[in-house]
């Protein structure tokens, strides 16, 4: 990972700000339940053209070879804009898995396409609810004439709706494998389950899905390493998206409180609402501070796998809780209007919910943190 380059960060911040101001995503999101267009190829191409898909990918694949700090700027903006496209699943989670493999032909080709907006690989590893580290792998890989046959069911695959293919984990005998399964592979069936925010999670069923031997991207302990690192990254960047969601929502609430008159006064002058807004401000600032620090640590400090996971959990837990608190309070601040479909607040509430649950909710992350802290404690003692 490169040192942070402030000029990159500034340029990114500017283009992100312009994108957010444009505000084109909100009407799309409101219509999602009707249109099911959570993945709009035109929109995705715009993200690619802005260079945002390639922030993590190496320059050899057309990427920028930058780090978490830069990708977080984009994610926070997309959170604000409520962009429904699977930025984190593709441009962070998949990209972070593929980047260390980019010396090989196939991963490099996928990454190249990813950066250009032509491929949208999505990780399909999890098999059981709330197993966000995807430890459990019942999916079986069986060598066959012509390649490897995959059988199993992957769940909670966010981004599946727009996926061009899947990064699938499987076991051959005791050995873990990571395989590339193009979406059109025979025996690869995707069922989309609607989520609160109008987007979907996929259930990917692999039924005698045959891919060539060359589609094995990694094997053995390397698979776990790749997954762990990429999942930590994706959790942190989801936290950044949540930060965008919560900041924007808090702004909407404050704006409303300053203009909405009740009993002859702006409701923002009522002390009880003021103090509630302050407590949410504190949550917002805690979330921002944790996220900044965690990104800083993960970018510049040599970290053990455990410390990195603890840092990621800390960021995800705080940002998720803060986002849920702030969006729920926003309904109350807005009163009846906040409970209508017409009000933007509801869109932010629902996005906060799906992002908070994605890759582990705050409770799950606190539990992971406690588990790892206890291990660290024992080792230190």
């Amino acid at each position, binding site marked *: 990972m490169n040192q942070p380059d402030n000029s990159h960060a500034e340029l990114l911040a500017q283009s992100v700000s312009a994108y957010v101001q444009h505000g084109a995503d909100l009407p799309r999101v409101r219509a999602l339940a009707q249109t099911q267009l959570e993945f709009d190829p035109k929109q995705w191409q715009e993200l690619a053209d802005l260079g945002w898909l390639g922030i993590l990918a190496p320059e050899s694949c057309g990427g920028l070879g930058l780090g978490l700090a830069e990708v977080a700027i984009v994610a926070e903006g997309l959170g604000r804009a409520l962009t429904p496209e699977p930025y984190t699943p593709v441009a962070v989670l998949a990209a972070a898995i593929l980047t260390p493999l980019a010396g090989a032909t196939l991963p490099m080709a996928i990454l190249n396409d990813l950066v250009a907006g032509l491929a949208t690989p999505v990780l399909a590893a999890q098999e059981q609810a709330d197993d*966000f580290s995807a430890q459990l792998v019942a999916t079986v890989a069986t060598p066959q004439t012509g390649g490897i046959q995959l059988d199993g069911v992957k769940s909670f695959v966010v981004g599946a709706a727009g996926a061009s293919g899947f990064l699938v984990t499987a076991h051959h005998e005791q050995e873990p494998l990571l395989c590339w399964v193009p979406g059109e592979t025979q025996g690869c069936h995707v069922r989309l389950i609607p989520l609160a925010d109008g987007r979907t999670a996929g259930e990917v069923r692999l039924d005698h899905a045959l891919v060539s031997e060359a589609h094995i991207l990694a094997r053995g302990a390397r698979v776990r390493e790749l997954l762990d690192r990429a999942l930590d990254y994706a959790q942190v960047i989801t936290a950044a998206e949540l930060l965008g969601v919560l900041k924007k929502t808090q702004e909407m609430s404050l704006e409303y409180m300053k203009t*909405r008159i*009740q*009993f002859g006064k702006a409701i923002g002058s009522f002390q*009880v609402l003021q103090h509630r807004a302050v407590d949410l401000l504190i949550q917002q600032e805690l979330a921002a501070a944790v996220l900044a620090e965690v990104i800083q640590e993960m970018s510049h400090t040599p970290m053990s796998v455990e410390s990195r996971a603890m840092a990621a959990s800390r960021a995800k837990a705080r940002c998720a809780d803060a986002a849920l608190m702030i969006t729920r309070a926003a309904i109350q601040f807005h*009163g*009846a209007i906040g409970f*209508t479909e017409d009000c933007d607040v509801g869109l932010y509430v629902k996005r906060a919910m799906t992002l908070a649950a994605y890759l582990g909710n705050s409770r799950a992350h606190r539990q992971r943190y406690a588990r790892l802290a206890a291990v660290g404690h024992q080792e230190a003692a």
Partner: protein
Amino acid sequence: MSDWNALSDEAFRAQAREYFEREFPAEYKFLARRMRWAECRDWYQKLSRKGWIAPNWPIEHGGMGLSPTKLLIFYEEIEHAGVGRMPDQGLTMVGPTLIHFGNAAQRAEYLPKIIAGEAVWCQGYSEPNAGSDLASLHTEAVLDGDDFVINGSKIWTSMAHDATHIYVLARTDKQARKRQEGISFLLVDMKTPGITLRTIRNIAGHEEFCQVFFDNVRTPQSNLVGELNQGWTIAKGLLGFERLNIGSPRRPLQAMEKLEALATARGLMADPAFVERLTQLKLDLADHNSLYRRFVDQVRRGESLGPDVSMLKVWSMDTYQRLSELVLEAAGEYGVMTGDVDFDGTAIDVLAPFYNSRPGTIYGGSNEIQRNILAKYVLQLPS
């Protein structure tokens, strides 16, 4: 009509359980939204024929006259069986109001129709931009011959699109000294010419609310409840019933049913950390029952409800929201899936309690307003 109070609690509970489980249509059990009238009319009328439609009304008006404890059992069994929420403004609001404030003719005309399910009521209180500031209302009614002529609009009227009647607070004296004076309480047939509706979708995408427009809508003078310009007194009395109704443990109970089903299906009852939080909520709900009984007893003794009933509403809706939030947390990744989610054979709509519990802290006077009322009128704190 039986004296249900004479039964033992256990026998009454067993009867109610058996009846609701057997008779309530399976396709509507644990519905995520409020039932539409077309969906629940049969059920309403079946309950009516059994004499069970108005558990809280006095027996002489066709109710069950249940004691507080029996009433809670009745509610618990309704929620246990997943009986959906019907348009209930007639039962919870109009009926008690007419019994207390109406005249004999109004009672004779309207109460039997509510019991029979021939009249479905909705509430014309809130107005655009008024929020919790009810007394700021602009809708006006002018006496013209034997009729009041109403002009204006009401909003956040739940289920108005299913209603046959609406009760309206309207300004009948614009010269009144205080905003609370010069308001009257009127009953209006929804078929009256000049009434139009706009439905409003809620956050869950359901058509729950309406805006109701009144354009020279005529209602006979006989539909004035209480005295002219004294509507605020009735509205306040009615708010007591509303707060008792919203303050009943029914809605939190509903969420608790889901939470326990979910926890069992997901094996969370073996997780001490979850059980600790569940138990806290169970006690919050059990203690809520105790407090609710106290107020129901008061009504049953014929005493009117004071401003302290607001505390029931605050606690009920706060508990409901906390419960709904634990449902989502306990559901984990399933907690963001829309519609029924299958948990090893148990279908649970995990998002429904979350959405359904949101407006409760806003409508009927927000929880903030209720706390203001309690601070001023119960604690007598200075303003």
